[in-house]
Protein backbone atom coordinates (compact mmCIF):
# COMPACT_ATOMS: atom_id res chain seq x y z
CA UNK A 1 0.00 0.00 0.00
CA UNK A 2 2.86 2.33 0.86
CA UNK A 3 4.44 1.78 -2.56
CA UNK A 4 1.14 2.57 -4.31
CA UNK A 5 0.88 5.77 -2.31
CA UNK A 6 4.46 6.82 -3.18
CA UNK A 7 3.79 6.22 -6.88
CA UNK A 8 0.38 7.97 -6.72
CA UNK A 9 1.92 10.96 -4.99
CA UNK A 10 4.50 11.25 -7.76
CA UNK A 11 1.73 11.43 -10.38
CA UNK A 12 -0.12 13.99 -8.29
CA UNK A 13 2.98 16.14 -7.95
CA UNK A 14 3.54 15.89 -11.71
CA UNK A 15 -0.02 17.11 -12.21
CA UNK A 16 0.53 20.06 -9.89
CA UNK A 17 3.95 20.89 -11.30
CA UNK A 18 2.92 21.11 -14.93
CA UNK A 19 -0.20 23.11 -13.98
CA UNK A 20 -2.33 20.31 -15.36
CA UNK A 21 -4.62 20.23 -12.34
CA UNK A 22 -4.94 24.00 -12.21
CA UNK A 23 -5.92 24.20 -15.88
CA UNK A 24 -8.45 21.40 -15.54
CA UNK A 25 -10.09 23.05 -12.52
CA UNK A 26 -10.28 26.35 -14.36
CA UNK A 27 -11.73 24.74 -17.46
CA UNK A 28 -14.37 22.74 -15.63
CA UNK A 29 -15.38 25.60 -13.32
CA UNK A 30 -15.69 28.08 -16.18
CA UNK A 31 -17.76 25.73 -18.32
CA UNK A 32 -20.04 24.85 -15.41
CA UNK A 33 -20.61 28.49 -14.54
CA UNK A 34 -21.27 29.48 -18.16
CA UNK A 35 -23.72 26.60 -18.52
CA UNK A 36 -25.49 27.53 -15.30
CA UNK A 37 -25.95 31.10 -16.53
CA UNK A 38 -27.26 29.93 -19.89
CA UNK A 39 -29.34 27.18 -18.37
CA UNK A 40 -31.30 29.42 -16.06
CA UNK A 41 -33.27 30.88 -18.95
CA UNK A 42 -35.81 28.07 -19.56
CA UNK A 43 -36.51 27.50 -15.88
CA UNK A 44 -39.54 29.73 -15.93
CA UNK A 45 -42.17 27.46 -17.49
CA UNK A 46 -41.00 24.05 -16.22
CA UNK A 47 -41.06 23.61 -12.48
CA UNK A 48 -37.52 22.46 -11.87
CA UNK A 49 -34.68 24.03 -9.95
CA UNK A 50 -31.80 25.83 -11.65
CA UNK A 51 -29.40 23.19 -10.36
CA UNK A 52 -31.37 20.39 -12.02
CA UNK A 53 -31.12 22.13 -15.37
CA UNK A 54 -27.42 22.66 -14.86
CA UNK A 55 -26.95 18.97 -14.08
CA UNK A 56 -28.51 18.03 -17.42
CA UNK A 57 -26.40 20.53 -19.30
CA UNK A 58 -23.22 19.66 -17.43
CA UNK A 59 -23.72 15.91 -17.80
CA UNK A 60 -24.21 16.34 -21.54
CA UNK A 61 -21.00 18.29 -21.74
CA UNK A 62 -19.01 16.14 -19.31
CA UNK A 63 -19.69 13.06 -21.34
CA UNK A 64 -17.46 14.59 -24.03
CA UNK A 65 -15.03 16.48 -21.88
CA UNK A 66 -14.22 14.12 -19.01
CA UNK A 67 -13.18 11.18 -21.24
CA UNK A 68 -10.98 13.56 -23.21
CA UNK A 69 -9.30 14.86 -20.05
CA UNK A 70 -8.85 11.34 -18.67
CA UNK A 71 -7.35 10.02 -21.89
CA UNK A 72 -4.96 12.96 -22.13
CA UNK A 73 -3.84 12.12 -18.63
CA UNK A 74 -3.36 8.40 -19.20
CA UNK A 75 -2.35 7.62 -22.78
CA UNK A 76 1.30 8.41 -22.03
CA UNK A 77 1.45 6.68 -18.63
CA UNK A 78 3.16 3.48 -19.77
CA UNK A 79 4.36 3.96 -23.33
CA UNK A 80 5.96 7.27 -22.30
CA UNK A 81 8.00 5.60 -19.60
CA UNK A 82 8.97 2.73 -21.88
CA UNK A 83 10.05 5.14 -24.59
CA UNK A 84 12.01 7.47 -22.33
CA UNK A 85 13.58 4.53 -20.49
CA UNK A 86 12.43 5.46 -17.01
CA UNK A 87 10.39 2.27 -16.66
CA UNK A 88 13.54 0.18 -16.89
CA UNK A 89 14.98 1.73 -13.77
CA UNK A 90 11.68 1.89 -11.90
CA UNK A 91 11.15 -1.85 -12.25
CA UNK A 92 14.50 -2.64 -10.64
CA UNK A 93 13.20 -0.98 -7.48
CA UNK A 94 11.28 -2.97 -4.88
CA UNK A 95 7.92 -2.43 -6.57
CA UNK A 96 5.80 -5.05 -8.28
CA UNK A 97 4.30 -4.33 -11.66
CA UNK A 98 0.75 -4.28 -10.34
CA UNK A 99 1.83 -1.69 -7.79
CA UNK A 100 3.17 0.46 -10.63
CA UNK A 101 -0.18 0.28 -12.44
CA UNK A 102 -2.27 0.78 -9.31
CA UNK A 103 -0.04 3.62 -8.14
CA UNK A 104 -0.43 5.45 -11.42
CA UNK A 105 -4.16 4.74 -11.44
CA UNK A 106 -4.61 6.02 -7.91
CA UNK A 107 -2.60 9.14 -8.76
CA UNK A 108 -4.52 9.88 -11.94
CA UNK A 109 -7.91 9.29 -10.33
CA UNK A 110 -6.84 11.57 -7.51
CA UNK A 111 -5.96 14.26 -10.04
CA UNK A 112 -9.37 13.86 -11.68
CA UNK A 113 -11.05 13.94 -8.28
CA UNK A 114 -9.42 17.25 -7.46
CA UNK A 115 -10.14 18.70 -10.90
CA UNK A 116 -13.80 17.62 -10.97
CA UNK A 117 -14.72 18.35 -7.37
CA UNK A 118 -12.87 21.64 -7.24
CA UNK A 119 -14.02 22.75 -10.71
CA UNK A 120 -17.65 21.72 -10.50
CA UNK A 121 -17.67 22.45 -6.77
CA UNK A 122 -16.67 26.04 -7.40
CA UNK A 123 -19.45 26.32 -9.94
CA UNK A 124 -21.92 24.87 -7.44
CA UNK A 125 -20.87 27.45 -4.88
CA UNK A 126 -21.32 30.18 -7.47
CA UNK A 127 -24.83 29.00 -8.34
CA UNK A 128 -25.91 28.69 -4.73
CA UNK A 129 -24.67 32.18 -3.98
CA UNK A 130 -26.30 33.62 -7.11
CA UNK A 131 -29.65 32.05 -6.33
CA UNK A 132 -29.56 33.44 -2.82
CA UNK A 133 -28.82 30.16 -1.06
CA UNK A 134 -31.04 27.76 -3.02
CA UNK A 135 -29.63 24.26 -2.45
CA UNK A 136 -32.49 22.35 -4.06
CA UNK A 137 -31.21 19.59 -6.35
CA UNK A 138 -27.78 19.30 -4.77
CA UNK A 139 -28.08 15.51 -4.59
CA UNK A 140 -28.32 15.26 -8.36
CA UNK A 141 -25.41 17.64 -8.69
CA UNK A 142 -23.35 15.55 -6.30
CA UNK A 143 -24.19 12.37 -8.20
CA UNK A 144 -23.15 14.12 -11.37
CA UNK A 145 -19.74 14.92 -9.87
CA UNK A 146 -19.23 11.42 -8.49
CA UNK A 147 -20.28 9.68 -11.69
CA UNK A 148 -18.08 12.08 -13.66
CA UNK A 149 -15.16 10.85 -11.59
CA UNK A 150 -16.17 7.27 -12.32
CA UNK A 151 -16.43 8.10 -16.02
CA UNK A 152 -12.96 9.61 -15.77
CA UNK A 153 -11.66 6.44 -14.12
CA UNK A 154 -13.11 4.38 -16.99
CA UNK A 155 -11.15 6.39 -19.52
CA UNK A 156 -7.99 6.44 -17.45
CA UNK A 157 -8.15 2.63 -17.47
CA UNK A 158 -8.85 2.58 -21.22
CA UNK A 159 -5.97 5.00 -21.75
CA UNK A 160 -3.62 2.60 -19.93
CA UNK A 161 -4.77 -0.23 -22.14
CA UNK A 162 -3.83 1.84 -25.19
CA UNK A 163 -0.58 2.82 -23.50
CA UNK A 164 0.49 -0.76 -22.84
CA UNK A 165 -0.55 -2.01 -26.28
CA UNK A 166 1.21 0.46 -28.57
CA UNK A 167 4.91 0.77 -29.25
CA UNK A 168 5.22 4.52 -29.67
CA UNK A 169 3.79 7.61 -28.02
CA UNK A 170 2.57 9.00 -31.33
CA UNK A 171 0.50 5.87 -31.90
CA UNK A 172 -0.85 6.17 -28.38
CA UNK A 173 -2.16 9.69 -28.98
CA UNK A 174 -3.87 8.59 -32.18
CA UNK A 175 -5.36 5.49 -30.61
CA UNK A 176 -6.59 7.42 -27.58
CA UNK A 177 -8.35 9.91 -29.84
CA UNK A 178 -9.84 7.05 -31.81
CA UNK A 179 -11.08 5.49 -28.61
CA UNK A 180 -12.69 8.76 -27.61
CA UNK A 181 -14.39 9.09 -30.97
CA UNK A 182 -15.79 5.56 -30.78
CA UNK A 183 -17.04 5.68 -27.21
CA UNK A 184 -18.28 9.23 -27.13
CA UNK A 185 -19.55 9.89 -30.63
CA UNK A 186 -19.63 6.96 -33.05
CA UNK A 187 -21.27 4.33 -30.85
CA UNK A 188 -24.33 6.46 -30.20
CA UNK A 189 -24.45 7.64 -33.76
CA UNK A 190 -24.49 4.06 -35.03
CA UNK A 191 -27.02 3.02 -32.42
CA UNK A 192 -29.47 5.76 -33.27
CA UNK A 193 -28.78 5.34 -36.96
CA UNK A 194 -29.68 1.66 -36.70
CA UNK A 195 -32.80 2.57 -34.82
CA UNK A 196 -33.89 5.00 -37.53
CA UNK A 197 -33.28 2.47 -40.31
CA UNK A 198 -34.98 -0.29 -38.38
CA UNK A 199 -38.43 0.02 -39.92
CA UNK A 200 -39.43 -3.54 -38.96
CA UNK A 201 -38.60 -2.78 -35.35
CA UNK A 202 -36.22 -5.73 -35.03
CA UNK A 203 -34.44 -3.83 -32.32
CA UNK A 204 -36.86 -4.05 -29.45
CA UNK A 205 -36.79 -1.82 -26.45
CA UNK A 206 -34.97 -4.51 -24.50
CA UNK A 207 -32.11 -4.88 -26.97
CA UNK A 208 -31.89 -1.13 -27.36
CA UNK A 209 -31.67 -0.63 -23.60
CA UNK A 210 -28.99 -3.28 -23.34
CA UNK A 211 -26.98 -1.69 -26.13
CA UNK A 212 -27.24 1.64 -24.35
CA UNK A 213 -26.33 0.09 -21.04
CA UNK A 214 -23.11 -1.59 -22.15
CA UNK A 215 -21.62 1.72 -23.23
CA UNK A 216 -19.97 3.50 -20.29
CA UNK A 217 -20.82 6.93 -21.69
CA UNK A 218 -24.50 6.07 -22.16
CA UNK A 219 -24.62 4.59 -18.68
CA UNK A 220 -23.29 7.88 -17.42
CA UNK A 221 -25.87 9.84 -19.39
CA UNK A 222 -28.79 7.73 -18.22
CA UNK A 223 -27.58 7.83 -14.66
CA UNK A 224 -27.48 11.61 -14.58
CA UNK A 225 -30.56 12.30 -16.63
CA UNK A 226 -32.75 10.03 -14.53
CA UNK A 227 -31.27 10.97 -11.23
CA UNK A 228 -33.77 13.29 -9.68
CA UNK A 229 -37.48 13.74 -10.30
CA UNK A 230 -36.85 17.24 -11.58
CA UNK A 231 -34.11 16.19 -13.94
CA UNK A 232 -35.84 13.22 -15.49
CA UNK A 233 -38.96 15.30 -16.18
CA UNK A 234 -37.04 17.76 -18.25
CA UNK A 235 -34.72 15.32 -20.02
CA UNK A 236 -36.25 13.40 -22.90
CA UNK A 237 -34.68 9.95 -23.03
CA UNK A 238 -34.23 9.60 -19.34
CA UNK A 239 -37.82 8.55 -18.77
CA UNK A 240 -37.47 5.68 -21.20
CA UNK A 241 -34.32 4.50 -19.51
CA UNK A 242 -35.66 4.54 -16.00
CA UNK A 243 -38.71 2.63 -17.18
CA UNK A 244 -36.47 -0.04 -18.68
CA UNK A 245 -35.46 -1.06 -15.20
CA UNK A 246 -31.99 0.43 -15.08
CA UNK A 247 -31.33 1.03 -11.45
CA UNK A 248 -28.60 3.35 -10.27
CA UNK A 249 -26.76 0.31 -8.91
CA UNK A 250 -26.86 -1.42 -12.28
CA UNK A 251 -25.59 1.68 -14.10
CA UNK A 252 -22.80 2.18 -11.62
CA UNK A 253 -21.83 -1.51 -11.82
CA UNK A 254 -21.57 -1.28 -15.60
CA UNK A 255 -19.24 1.70 -15.30
CA UNK A 256 -17.23 -0.05 -12.62
CA UNK A 257 -16.80 -3.03 -14.92
CA UNK A 258 -15.49 -0.65 -17.55
CA UNK A 259 -12.80 0.31 -15.06
CA UNK A 260 -11.94 -3.19 -13.88
CA UNK A 261 -11.76 -4.96 -17.24
CA UNK A 262 -9.32 -2.60 -19.03
CA UNK A 263 -7.27 -2.23 -15.87
CA UNK A 264 -6.81 -5.97 -15.33
CA UNK A 265 -6.11 -6.48 -19.03
CA UNK A 266 -3.45 -3.77 -18.84
CA UNK A 267 -1.96 -5.43 -15.81
CA UNK A 268 -1.88 -8.81 -17.53
CA UNK A 269 -0.13 -7.36 -20.60
CA UNK A 270 2.28 -5.35 -18.47
CA UNK A 271 3.25 -8.43 -16.44
CA UNK A 272 4.20 -10.25 -19.62
CA UNK A 273 6.05 -7.30 -21.09
CA UNK A 274 9.81 -7.69 -21.43
CA UNK A 275 12.05 -4.69 -21.11
Amino acid at each position, binding site marked *: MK*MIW*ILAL*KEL*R*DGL*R*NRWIASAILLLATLAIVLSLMGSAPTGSVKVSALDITVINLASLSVYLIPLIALMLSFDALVGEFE*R*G*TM*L*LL*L*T*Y*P*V*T*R*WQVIMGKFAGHVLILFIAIFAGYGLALLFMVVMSGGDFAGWQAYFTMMTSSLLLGAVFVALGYLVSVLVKERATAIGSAMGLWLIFVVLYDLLLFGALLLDKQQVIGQKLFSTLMLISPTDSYRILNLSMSEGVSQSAGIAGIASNAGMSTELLLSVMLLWVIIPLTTTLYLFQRR*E*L
Partner: protein
Amino acid sequence: MAEKEVRANNIISLESVRKQYGKDTVLHDINFNVQAGESIVLVGHNGAGKTTLMKLMLGLTRPTSGTVEVLKGNPVLSTAVEQRLSLGYLPESVAFYDAMTGREVLSFYAALKGASQQECSNLLELVGLSDASKRKVATYSKGMRQRLGLAQAMLGDPQLLFLDEPTTGLDPLLRQHFYELIDKQHKKGATSIISSHALSEVEARANRFVILKKGVLVACGTLDELYQQVSLPTRINLKVQAGQASVVAERLGSDARIQKVNELDKDGLTLLCSKQEKMPLIRYISNLGEVVQDMQVIPPRLDEIYSYFMSGATA
Protein backbone atom coordinates in the same frame (compact mmCIF):
# COMPACT_ATOMS: atom_id res chain seq x y z
CA MET B 1 31.10 -31.29 -0.61
CA ALA B 2 33.34 -28.46 -1.64
CA GLU B 3 31.25 -27.87 -4.71
CA LYS B 4 28.12 -27.59 -2.64
CA GLU B 5 29.75 -25.11 -0.32
CA VAL B 6 30.78 -22.95 -3.23
CA ARG B 7 27.26 -23.08 -4.59
CA ALA B 8 25.88 -21.93 -1.28
CA ASN B 9 28.01 -18.80 -1.52
CA ASN B 10 26.75 -17.95 -4.97
CA ILE B 11 25.06 -14.60 -5.01
CA ILE B 12 24.27 -15.00 -8.70
CA SER B 13 24.03 -18.22 -10.62
CA LEU B 14 23.20 -18.69 -14.29
CA GLU B 15 22.64 -22.15 -15.67
CA SER B 16 22.36 -22.88 -19.40
CA VAL B 17 20.74 -19.51 -19.97
CA ARG B 18 19.55 -18.82 -23.47
CA LYS B 19 17.73 -15.69 -24.56
CA GLN B 20 15.92 -15.26 -27.81
CA TYR B 21 14.18 -12.16 -29.13
CA GLY B 22 11.95 -13.39 -31.93
CA LYS B 23 14.29 -15.39 -34.15
CA ASP B 24 17.47 -13.74 -32.89
CA THR B 25 19.32 -15.61 -30.20
CA VAL B 26 21.16 -12.94 -28.24
CA LEU B 27 22.59 -15.22 -25.56
CA HIS B 28 23.67 -18.83 -26.02
CA ASP B 29 23.98 -21.28 -23.16
CA ILE B 30 25.47 -18.97 -20.55
CA ASN B 31 26.80 -20.59 -17.37
CA PHE B 32 28.44 -18.58 -14.69
CA ASN B 33 28.38 -17.93 -10.99
CA VAL B 34 29.24 -14.92 -8.90
CA GLN B 35 30.19 -15.11 -5.28
CA ALA B 36 29.57 -12.50 -2.64
CA GLY B 37 32.18 -9.75 -2.61
CA GLU B 38 33.38 -10.37 -6.16
CA SER B 39 33.89 -7.62 -8.65
CA ILE B 40 33.02 -8.80 -12.14
CA VAL B 41 33.58 -6.95 -15.37
CA LEU B 42 31.60 -7.84 -18.47
CA VAL B 43 33.36 -7.07 -21.71
CA GLY B 44 32.27 -7.56 -25.29
CA HIS B 45 31.57 -5.74 -28.52
CA ASN B 46 28.39 -3.70 -28.97
CA GLY B 47 25.49 -6.11 -29.19
CA ALA B 48 27.42 -8.95 -27.58
CA GLY B 49 24.64 -9.39 -25.04
CA LYS B 50 26.06 -7.58 -22.00
CA THR B 51 22.98 -5.48 -21.38
CA THR B 52 20.63 -8.41 -21.97
CA LEU B 53 22.63 -10.46 -19.49
CA MET B 54 22.21 -7.70 -16.91
CA LYS B 55 18.50 -7.41 -17.62
CA LEU B 56 18.14 -11.14 -17.04
CA MET B 57 19.88 -10.87 -13.69
CA LEU B 58 17.71 -7.87 -12.80
CA GLY B 59 14.54 -9.74 -13.66
CA LEU B 60 13.54 -7.22 -16.32
CA THR B 61 13.36 -9.95 -18.88
CA ARG B 62 13.05 -13.71 -18.59
CA PRO B 63 15.32 -16.34 -20.13
CA THR B 64 14.00 -18.36 -23.08
CA SER B 65 15.47 -21.40 -21.34
CA GLY B 66 17.75 -22.08 -18.40
CA THR B 67 17.64 -20.67 -14.89
CA VAL B 68 18.74 -17.39 -13.39
CA GLU B 69 19.12 -17.10 -9.64
CA VAL B 70 19.99 -13.86 -7.89
CA LEU B 71 20.33 -13.56 -4.11
CA LYS B 72 18.75 -17.02 -3.83
CA GLY B 73 15.63 -16.17 -5.76
CA ASN B 74 14.24 -15.95 -9.25
CA PRO B 75 14.52 -12.25 -10.16
CA VAL B 76 11.45 -12.17 -12.42
CA LEU B 77 9.02 -13.25 -9.72
CA SER B 78 7.10 -10.69 -7.73
CA THR B 79 8.70 -12.19 -4.62
CA ALA B 80 12.00 -10.75 -5.86
CA VAL B 81 10.86 -7.43 -4.41
CA GLU B 82 12.71 -8.36 -1.21
CA GLN B 83 15.94 -8.97 -3.12
CA ARG B 84 15.61 -5.69 -4.99
CA LEU B 85 15.90 -3.81 -1.70
CA SER B 86 19.59 -4.69 -1.64
CA LEU B 87 20.24 -4.10 -5.31
CA GLY B 88 21.47 -1.04 -7.20
CA TYR B 89 21.33 -0.56 -10.95
CA LEU B 90 22.73 2.08 -13.24
CA PRO B 91 21.39 1.54 -16.76
CA GLU B 92 23.31 2.38 -19.88
CA SER B 93 22.41 5.98 -20.83
CA VAL B 94 20.18 6.43 -17.81
CA ALA B 95 16.90 8.34 -18.20
CA PHE B 96 15.06 10.27 -15.50
CA TYR B 97 11.83 12.19 -15.13
CA ASP B 98 13.01 15.40 -16.75
CA ALA B 99 10.45 17.71 -15.18
CA MET B 100 11.62 16.86 -11.68
CA THR B 101 14.64 18.35 -9.95
CA GLY B 102 17.64 16.17 -9.14
CA ARG B 103 16.63 16.17 -5.51
CA GLU B 104 13.03 15.19 -6.29
CA VAL B 105 14.16 12.32 -8.49
CA LEU B 106 16.46 10.97 -5.82
CA SER B 107 13.85 11.42 -3.08
CA PHE B 108 11.31 9.51 -5.14
CA TYR B 109 13.67 6.56 -5.60
CA ALA B 110 14.73 6.76 -1.95
CA ALA B 111 11.09 6.49 -0.85
CA LEU B 112 10.68 3.34 -2.93
CA LYS B 113 13.76 1.82 -1.35
CA GLY B 114 12.95 2.99 2.15
CA ALA B 115 16.08 5.17 2.28
CA SER B 116 16.09 8.38 4.30
CA GLN B 117 16.14 11.97 3.09
CA GLN B 118 19.43 12.40 4.91
CA GLU B 119 20.91 9.66 2.75
CA CYS B 120 19.74 11.55 -0.36
CA SER B 121 21.58 14.65 0.77
CA ASN B 122 24.70 12.64 1.52
CA LEU B 123 24.66 10.95 -1.86
CA LEU B 124 24.08 14.21 -3.71
CA GLU B 125 27.05 15.64 -1.85
CA LEU B 126 29.12 12.57 -2.64
CA VAL B 127 28.52 12.75 -6.40
CA GLY B 128 28.93 16.53 -6.37
CA LEU B 129 25.37 17.44 -7.27
CA SER B 130 24.39 19.32 -4.13
CA ASP B 131 24.45 22.69 -5.87
CA ALA B 132 22.51 21.44 -8.87
CA SER B 133 19.99 19.45 -6.85
CA LYS B 134 17.32 22.16 -7.11
CA ARG B 135 17.60 22.31 -10.87
CA LYS B 136 15.40 20.31 -13.22
CA VAL B 137 17.01 17.16 -14.55
CA ALA B 138 16.20 18.35 -18.08
CA THR B 139 18.95 20.97 -17.68
CA TYR B 140 21.58 18.41 -16.61
CA SER B 141 24.58 17.51 -18.76
CA LYS B 142 25.33 13.90 -19.61
CA GLY B 143 27.92 13.68 -16.87
CA MET B 144 25.50 15.09 -14.31
CA ARG B 145 22.83 12.57 -15.28
CA GLN B 146 25.38 9.81 -14.96
CA ARG B 147 26.29 11.03 -11.49
CA LEU B 148 22.65 11.21 -10.49
CA GLY B 149 22.31 7.70 -11.85
CA LEU B 150 25.16 6.56 -9.69
CA ALA B 151 23.63 8.25 -6.64
CA GLN B 152 20.35 6.40 -7.13
CA ALA B 153 22.19 3.11 -7.60
CA MET B 154 23.87 3.66 -4.23
CA LEU B 155 20.62 4.25 -2.36
CA GLY B 156 19.91 1.90 0.51
CA ASP B 157 23.48 0.61 0.80
CA PRO B 158 23.13 -2.07 -1.92
CA GLN B 159 24.80 -5.47 -1.61
CA LEU B 160 24.71 -6.06 -5.34
CA LEU B 161 25.54 -3.41 -7.92
CA PHE B 162 24.81 -3.64 -11.63
CA LEU B 163 26.51 -0.86 -13.55
CA ASP B 164 26.10 -0.74 -17.31
CA GLU B 165 28.94 1.26 -18.86
CA PRO B 166 29.05 3.53 -15.86
CA THR B 167 31.94 5.82 -16.77
CA THR B 168 30.91 6.90 -20.26
CA GLY B 169 30.49 10.65 -20.27
CA LEU B 170 32.53 11.19 -17.11
CA ASP B 171 35.75 13.16 -17.12
CA PRO B 172 38.94 11.44 -15.84
CA LEU B 173 38.67 12.95 -12.37
CA LEU B 174 35.07 11.86 -12.00
CA ARG B 175 35.95 8.40 -13.24
CA GLN B 176 38.48 8.05 -10.49
CA HIS B 177 36.01 9.40 -7.98
CA PHE B 178 33.44 6.97 -9.29
CA TYR B 179 35.72 3.95 -8.79
CA GLU B 180 36.50 5.13 -5.27
CA LEU B 181 32.78 5.02 -4.52
CA ILE B 182 32.53 1.49 -5.86
CA ASP B 183 35.59 0.45 -3.86
CA LYS B 184 34.02 1.85 -0.73
CA GLN B 185 30.97 -0.28 -1.35
CA HIS B 186 33.22 -3.31 -1.94
CA LYS B 187 34.89 -2.81 1.39
CA LYS B 188 31.45 -3.20 2.95
CA GLY B 189 31.21 -6.58 1.27
CA ALA B 190 29.20 -5.59 -1.78
CA THR B 191 29.37 -7.41 -5.10
CA SER B 192 29.54 -5.55 -8.38
CA ILE B 193 28.87 -6.43 -12.00
CA ILE B 194 30.17 -3.75 -14.35
CA SER B 195 29.99 -3.75 -18.11
CA SER B 196 32.62 -1.62 -19.77
CA HIS B 197 34.46 -0.82 -22.96
CA ALA B 198 37.18 1.02 -21.09
CA LEU B 199 39.45 -2.02 -20.71
CA SER B 200 42.54 -0.24 -19.43
CA GLU B 201 40.34 1.40 -16.81
CA VAL B 202 38.83 -1.77 -15.39
CA GLU B 203 41.87 -4.01 -15.83
CA ALA B 204 43.22 -3.46 -12.34
CA ARG B 205 39.88 -3.11 -10.66
CA ALA B 206 38.03 -6.33 -11.29
CA ASN B 207 38.87 -9.70 -9.88
CA ARG B 208 37.12 -11.54 -12.69
CA PHE B 209 36.34 -10.86 -16.32
CA VAL B 210 33.58 -12.26 -18.46
CA ILE B 211 34.14 -11.95 -22.19
CA LEU B 212 31.08 -12.14 -24.42
CA LYS B 213 31.14 -12.50 -28.16
CA LYS B 214 27.94 -12.58 -30.21
CA GLY B 215 26.00 -13.87 -27.23
CA VAL B 216 28.50 -16.58 -26.36
CA LEU B 217 30.54 -16.54 -23.20
CA VAL B 218 34.01 -17.10 -24.66
CA ALA B 219 36.04 -16.67 -21.51
CA CYS B 220 35.59 -16.10 -17.82
CA GLY B 221 38.25 -15.81 -15.16
CA THR B 222 40.85 -13.68 -13.48
CA LEU B 223 43.33 -11.83 -15.64
CA ASP B 224 45.88 -14.52 -14.87
CA GLU B 225 43.52 -17.34 -15.75
CA LEU B 226 42.67 -15.66 -19.04
CA TYR B 227 46.36 -15.16 -19.71
CA GLN B 228 46.90 -18.90 -19.26
CA GLN B 229 44.21 -19.62 -21.83
CA VAL B 230 45.65 -17.49 -24.59
CA SER B 231 48.81 -17.98 -26.64
CA LEU B 232 49.83 -14.36 -26.63
CA PRO B 233 53.50 -13.49 -26.38
CA THR B 234 54.98 -11.89 -23.30
CA ARG B 235 57.03 -8.79 -23.93
CA ILE B 236 60.45 -8.30 -22.35
CA ASN B 237 62.04 -4.86 -22.51
CA LEU B 238 65.79 -4.67 -22.06
CA LYS B 239 68.03 -1.74 -21.36
CA VAL B 240 71.64 -2.44 -22.34
CA GLN B 241 74.95 -0.58 -22.22
CA ALA B 242 75.12 2.30 -24.65
CA GLY B 243 75.78 1.18 -28.20
CA GLN B 244 75.42 -2.50 -27.35
CA ALA B 245 71.85 -2.94 -28.54
CA SER B 246 72.72 -4.34 -31.94
CA VAL B 247 75.27 -6.72 -30.45
CA VAL B 248 72.77 -8.09 -27.96
CA ALA B 249 70.07 -8.21 -30.60
CA GLU B 250 72.25 -10.27 -32.85
CA ARG B 251 73.11 -12.65 -30.07
CA LEU B 252 69.49 -13.12 -29.03
CA GLY B 253 68.19 -13.16 -32.57
CA SER B 254 69.65 -16.61 -33.16
CA ASP B 255 67.91 -17.97 -30.05
CA ALA B 256 65.00 -20.23 -31.02
CA ARG B 257 63.10 -19.41 -27.83
CA ILE B 258 62.59 -15.84 -28.92
CA GLN B 259 59.81 -15.09 -31.36
CA LYS B 260 60.91 -11.62 -32.28
CA VAL B 261 63.58 -9.10 -31.43
CA ASN B 262 63.08 -5.40 -31.98
CA GLU B 263 65.89 -2.92 -31.67
CA LEU B 264 64.39 0.30 -30.30
CA ASP B 265 67.51 2.47 -30.18
CA LYS B 266 71.20 2.07 -29.39
CA ASP B 267 70.57 0.96 -25.81
CA GLY B 268 67.08 -0.50 -25.80
CA LEU B 269 65.37 -3.52 -27.29
CA THR B 270 62.20 -5.49 -26.99
CA LEU B 271 61.70 -9.27 -27.17
CA LEU B 272 58.59 -11.33 -27.63
CA CYS B 273 58.40 -14.85 -26.28
CA SER B 274 55.77 -17.42 -25.35
CA LYS B 275 54.77 -17.72 -21.70
CA GLN B 276 56.40 -21.19 -21.46
CA GLU B 277 59.75 -19.80 -22.55
CA LYS B 278 59.56 -16.73 -20.40
CA MET B 279 61.33 -18.02 -17.26
CA PRO B 280 64.17 -19.90 -19.03
CA LEU B 281 64.77 -16.82 -21.12
CA ILE B 282 64.87 -14.51 -18.10
CA ARG B 283 67.47 -16.78 -16.48
CA TYR B 284 69.50 -16.80 -19.68
CA ILE B 285 69.39 -13.01 -20.02
CA SER B 286 70.42 -12.55 -16.38
CA ASN B 287 73.53 -14.55 -17.19
CA LEU B 288 74.54 -12.25 -20.02
CA GLY B 289 76.34 -10.11 -17.48
CA GLU B 290 76.94 -6.38 -17.14
CA VAL B 291 75.78 -5.60 -20.63
CA VAL B 292 72.11 -5.91 -19.62
CA GLN B 293 71.31 -3.11 -17.23
CA ASP B 294 67.55 -3.36 -16.74
CA MET B 295 64.73 -5.70 -17.62
CA GLN B 296 60.93 -5.31 -17.68
CA VAL B 297 58.55 -8.23 -18.18
CA ILE B 298 55.17 -7.18 -19.52
CA PRO B 299 52.41 -9.81 -19.73
CA PRO B 300 49.65 -9.31 -22.30
CA ARG B 301 47.24 -6.62 -21.23
CA LEU B 302 43.47 -7.04 -20.99
CA ASP B 303 42.88 -5.28 -24.28
CA GLU B 304 45.28 -7.67 -26.02
CA ILE B 305 43.62 -10.68 -24.40
CA TYR B 306 40.27 -9.23 -25.38
CA SER B 307 41.35 -8.75 -29.00
CA TYR B 308 42.66 -12.31 -28.99
CA PHE B 309 39.26 -13.71 -27.96
CA MET B 310 37.41 -11.38 -30.31
CA SER B 311 39.57 -12.17 -33.34
CA GLY B 312 37.92 -15.57 -33.60
CA ALA B 313 40.92 -17.55 -32.37
CA THR B 314 38.54 -19.58 -30.23
CA ALA B 315 35.90 -22.05 -31.25
